[in-house]
C-alpha cells in the first residue's frame, strides 16, 4: 500500500513538474522554507515550577511561481509547536496564498490570503530566520497563543493589499493599505460554528512610513467591527449594545541602523469603542531591542517588552520581559540562537496573581 502511494505521489510530482521543465528558468516552481527547533527551560522564581521542553517551534513551507514577469503566486504552509495531528499537538495553518502584481516600485498589488503590513514585525513575525530571537516580542510569539491573544494586537490576515514606495532624494515614503475580514462571530464551536464570518464586517488598515538608508519610521492603524453579544450574554449584560463594536488598533515603529548597531522598537494600542461602563478590553504592547553585530556571523541583543492586556471585568494581565540573547550564523543557511528572559507578570483581578520567571532557550534555525 505504502509503495503504491509512493508511486502515485511520484507520478503526480512528475506530471506536475514535467511541463515546468520546458519553461524558461525564471518561471519554474520554487519550493523552499525554513524551520526552527528549540529547547527551553522555564523556571518560576517564587514557586517550585519548572518546565523543560524541546519543540519544533516553526516550520514553514513555501511554493512560489512566477506566472509572468509581473505576476507571482506564493503559498505558505505553516506548522507550529511540533505539529502532530496524531498526538493532538501544535497547529497547522495555511498562512498565505496570494498572487502579486508588480507594476513598479510605486505600485504593487497582492490578492489572496496574506499577512498584512502593520508596524515593523507583523509581516515577518513567523519568519524566524529573519529574527535573532528564539522567543519573539510577546505580541508576536505564536508559541504563547494560549496565554496572549495575539490576533488582538496585530491583524493576522488580509485579502487585498496595495503597497509600494515613492522616492524623493534619499527619502522613501512607504505606503500599504489593505482590507480583509474581521475575525468575529462565527468562531464559536459551542454554537456549531467555526471559521471566520465572511459575510458581515471588513477589516481595513494600513501603514505609512518614511525611511532612509539608516532609519525607518512608520504609523499603522486598523479598523474593524466585532460582535460580542454571546460574551455579553454569558456575563449577564444586555447584549444589544455589544453588536458591531468598533476595534481600533494604532501602531508605531521606529528602527535605526548605525554601522553595526540596530535599534528596533514598536508600540501597539488596541481600543474597543464599546462605551460600556464596566467592560474594558483595551490593550497595549511595547518593545525595544538593541542589536550589535559583533562579527559578520555573530550578533548580540538586549530588549525590553511590555504587554498590558485587559479583559475586564474578568481579568487583566501585565507582562514585562527583559531579555538578552545571541545568534551565530554557522553558515549561509543555519543559525544557532540562545536567549535568556526574565519575565514578571501581574494581574490585579481574580486571585491577584503575581509572579516572576526565568526563561532560557536554545535554538537552531535552518533555511532550505
Amino acid at each position: 500500500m505504502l509503495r503504491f502511494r509512493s508511486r502515485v505521489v511520484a507520478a503526480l510530482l512528475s506530471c506536475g513538474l514535467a511541463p515546468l521543465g520546458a519553461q524558461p528558468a525564471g518561471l519554474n516552481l520554487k519550493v523552499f522554507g525554513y524551520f526552527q527547533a528549540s529547547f527551553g527551560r522555564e523556571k518560576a522564581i517564587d514557586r517550585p515550577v519548572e518546565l523543560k521542553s524541546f519543540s519544533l517551534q516553526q516550520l514553514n513551507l513555501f511554493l512560489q511561481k512566477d506566472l509572468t514577469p509581473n505576476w507571482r503566486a506564493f503559498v505558505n504552509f505553516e506548522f507550529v509547536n511540533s505539529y502532530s495531528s496524531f498526538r493532538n499537538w501544535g497547529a497547522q495553518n495555511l498562512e498565505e496564498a496570494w498572487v502579486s502584481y508588480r507594476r513598479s516600485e510605486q505600485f504593487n498589488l497582492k490578492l489572496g490570503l496574506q499577512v498584512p503590513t502593520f508596524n515593523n514585525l507583523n509581516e515577518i513575525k513567523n519568519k524566524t530566520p529573519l529574527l535573532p530571537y528564539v522567543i519573539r516580542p510577546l505580541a508576536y510569539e505564536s508559541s504563547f497563543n494560549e496565554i496572549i491573544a495575539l490576533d488582538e494586537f496585530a491583524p493576522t490576515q488580509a485579502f487585498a493589499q496595495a503597497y509600494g514606495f515613492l522616492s524623493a532624494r534619499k527619502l522613501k515614503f512607504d505606503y500599504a493599505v489593505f482590507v480583509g475580514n474581521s475575525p468575529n462571530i462565527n468562531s464559536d464551536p459551542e454554537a456549531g460554528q467555526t471559521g471566520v464570518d465572511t459575510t458581515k464586517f471588513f477589516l481595513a488598515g494600513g501603514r505609512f512610513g518614511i525611511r532612509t538608508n539608516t532609519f525607518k519610521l512608520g504609523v499603522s492603524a486598523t479598523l474593524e467591527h466585532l460582535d460580542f453579544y454571546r460574551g455579553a450574554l454569558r456575563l449577564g449584560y444586555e447584549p444589544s449594545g455589544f453588536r458591531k463594536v468598533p476595534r481600533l488598533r494604532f501602531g508605531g515603529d521606529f528602527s535605526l541602523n548605525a554601522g553595526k548597531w540596530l535599534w528596533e522598537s514598536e508600540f501597539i494600542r488596541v481600543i474597543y469603542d464599546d462605551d460600556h461602563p464596566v467592560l474594558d478590553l483595551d490593550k497595549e504592547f511595547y518593545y525595544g531591542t538593541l542589536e550589535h553585530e559583533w562579527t559578520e556571523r555573530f550578533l548580540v541583543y538586549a530588549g525590553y517588552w511590555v504587554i498590558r492586556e485587559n479583559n475586564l471585568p474578568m481579568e487583566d494581565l501585565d507582562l514585562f520581559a527583559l531579555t538578552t540573547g545571541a545568534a551565530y550564523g554557522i553558515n549561509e543557511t543555519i543559525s544557532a540562537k540562545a536567549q535568556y528572559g526574565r519575565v514578571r507578570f501581574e494581574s490585579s483581578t481574580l486571585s491577584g496573581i503575581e509572579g516572576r520567571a526565568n526563561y532560557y532557550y536554545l535554538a537552531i534555525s535552518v533555511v532550505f
Partner: protein
Amino acid sequence: MAFAQIAIIAHKAVPEDTLSQALLLDFYSGEIKSWSNKVPVVVFDLKPVGETRELFYKLLGKTSSRMKSIWLKKLLMGEGEPPAALESEEEVVKKVAATRGAIGYVGKVKVTGEVKIITVVAKKEK
C-alpha cells in the same frame, strides 16, 4: 580613495552611465528592479570574501550580514531572490557582459572592454 580600487560594471546596453549610491543600494537590495529603459536589473554578487567585496559593501553603506538579511527577507516574503554570487571577478565580468540589464562589481584592474563602467556618486569616505 579606497573606493577608486573597485569598479561598478554593467552590460553595454544599460542606458545609465552614472548612479547614485542610494540607487545602487536600491538595485542590490531589490527595491528597484528595472533600469530607466524598463529592462529588468540583474544583479551579480561576489562569493569570495576579500577586499573587493568588502569595499563594495562599504560603498553601499551596509555590512555584508545586513545585506544578507535584506535578501533573506525578500526571499521569505516572496518578493525576490538574492543575487547570484559568482566565484571570481573574471566570472562577474563575463556574466555581466553576457546578460542584458546586468550589473556587478570587480576590482578596477579586472575590467575589460566587454562591459561598461558605471560611475557612482558615493558618500564621502570616513
